[in-house]
């Protein structure tokens, strides 16, 4: 029946999922080594980190705001994480906990300022970006920390099972957690409610201030996870971690069907958005495409995804109008 067909295609993740599948099949035909265990390992490592980054942005998109400071959170946590291990010999587990706390705290602080002042998140996170990045630079003077313990390095570079890296673990936990959060947890529903209709949420007795702080704290927490995952993967505490998160952190959720105005996001869609970006990045390298062209392709990809989303929205709107 036409209806159920439409319904399936209304799922945000189906489109990007099919594209990912097609891309994987297509590339592996031309380049069989694409599916080699090591390449899968490499792909999964990249996807893992980028997924956590994208989730950090997703939760803010869900509430109808944007977080420009995501990368600054991640970078600050990354260097703090290594710094306390190198300088004070803090064990990795404890350092991880402290890192998470710093991320959540930085995020929560940003959220607090946004919620209490009512100033647009764009401005506050722009200021946050500078402040947190500035603290990062002030502490490191732009020099990396090298004292990453072997166990952390191993976590970022060893495989858990066959071609599956350990890094997949935090990604899966974060993804399932976020999925559950948006689908089932009160806080997740409140975030979506505020993104969907803030006045209604307010009048229904939702504590908007607290929810906004929660959302930003979660965003900071995810940025912290991503920052520490990168430390593990790069085996070095680079102050530049996080500098280039912004574009992909928006691109993946948008490809995955998130509504920028808030109230509607898809964790699965975002995942496939991340997969598509990872595959394209790899394909450009594999097929030795002129490095100068890479930027153009990435930009085009965002436009393409936006176009698809837009078409789908129009079609759904038309469908609703007809049945209404």
């Amino acid at each position, binding site marked *: 029946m036409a209806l159920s067909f439409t319904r399936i295609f209304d799922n945000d993740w189906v489109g990007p999922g099919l594209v990912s599948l097609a891309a994987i099949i297509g590339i592996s035909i031309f380049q069989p080594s694409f599916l080699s265990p090591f390449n899968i390992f490499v792909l999964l490592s990249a996807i893992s980190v980028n997924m956590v980054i994208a989730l950090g942005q997703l939760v803010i998109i869900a509430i109808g705001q944007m977080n420009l400071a995501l990368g600054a959170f991640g970078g600050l946590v990354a260097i703090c994480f290594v710094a306390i291990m190198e300088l004070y010999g803090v064990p990795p587990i404890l350092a991880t906990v402290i890192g998470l706390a710093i991320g959540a705290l930085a995020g929560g602080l940003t959220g607090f300022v946004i919620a209490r002042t009512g100033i647009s998140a764009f401005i506050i996170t722009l200021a946050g970006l500078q402040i947190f990045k500035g603290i990062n630079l*002030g502490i490191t003077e732009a020099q990396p920390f090298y004292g990453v313990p072997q166990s952390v390095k191993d976590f970022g570079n060893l495989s858990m099972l066959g071609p599956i890296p350990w890094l997949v673990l935090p990604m899966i936990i974060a993804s399932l957690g976020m999925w559950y959060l948006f689908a089932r947890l009160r806080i997740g529903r409140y975030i979506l409610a505020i993104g969907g209709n803030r006045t209604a949420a307010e009048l229904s007795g939702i504590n908007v201030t607290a929810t906004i702080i929660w959302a930003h704290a979660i965003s900071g927490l995810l940025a912290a996870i991503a920052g520490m995952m990168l430390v593990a993967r790069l085996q070095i505490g680079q102050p530049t971690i996080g500098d280039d998160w912004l574009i992909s952190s928006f691109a993946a959720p948008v490809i995955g069907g998130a509504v920028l105005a808030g109230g509607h996001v898809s964790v699965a869609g975002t995942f496939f958005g991340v997969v598509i970006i990872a595959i394209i990045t790899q394909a450009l390298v594999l097929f030795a495409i002129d490095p100068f*062209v*890479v930027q153009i392709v990435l930009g085009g990809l965002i436009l393409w995804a936006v176009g698809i989303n837009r078409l789908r929205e129009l079609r759904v709107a038309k469908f609703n109008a007809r049945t209404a």
Partner: protein
Amino acid sequence: MTDTLHATDNFMPEQRRGSAVMRLALSNELGLAVLIAIAFGAFAITLPGFTSPFSLFTIGRQIGIDTMIGLAMMAVIVTGGLDLSVGAIGVCAAMVFGFLAQKMGIPLPLAAPGAILFGAVLGFINGYTVVRSGVHSFIITLASMSIFFGVMIFLTQAQSFNELPASVQALGKLRVGGMVSVLLLITLAVCAALSIFYRYTVLGRQMLAAGANPRAAELSGIRTGRVIISCHMLTGALAAFAGLMLTARTGAAVPSMAGHLGQDWLLPAFLAPVLGGTLLSGGRVSVVGTLLGATFVTIMTSGLLLMRVGEFWILACLGLMLLLAVLADRFRQQVLRARGMI
């Protein structure tokens, strides 16, 4: 909080409104101007060299360029949108200028307008895509920033145009009265022109109307789509103008002058208009505010550098300043509202 519909209906006093003088006294612009005066005074007294002709010249030149970048962003913030690709457009236009002036040997009075026109064309591409797709300009310009910059790097292979006529660099170094950069004067002229444009022209007014409430503007007979596209074109043209000013300053058209993807411009681009009181939601601009915003940032940066705070902390200081400035503005508005003055 609840039904805002009635809030304005009922008891918003119609006769109460501060006099024009009062409003000026409480305006964002005046607050900024006072801050600037205080900062300038403090630096002038405590920092030897701050008021030297060379220092004033470089500060003025920086203000000129940053203001222009801020104005470029302001022109599109009017629509309630934004343009992440200002830097990319600026660099692309500068490279086109370099190509025209150096490779094609086209005289400067033609090459410069050509480059500005090119900036407007790139702005048109942004605007057209935003209007026709109905997608938020954040995403569109995020993509176009990549594309514009990528194509530029692809075509130039990252090579600079550094054999421009000597007069280009001379312009960047030209001082009037020993301490005033001619670039600053150009920017002041553009500020004046834009102020007139927004206040005394049909298109300028239509931009403000379409930005404040596109639906109402459309239903009042304004071709909102076209007007929004022209906002993006104005942004493109102003970004190109800023690109040319930077070219004059560096004496060459350099692909890296706005950083990777032109991202280096984003901070000054937002900082100046936001500090200056331009509403991010659209519909209201402050050209003078943008000028003052850029001035404030430049003077503070310059002062902090001279204080030897440590270069690495300047970023954090600027961020803190932005935060304090918006908080102060919010506080000012609350006071005004409590007194029923707005």
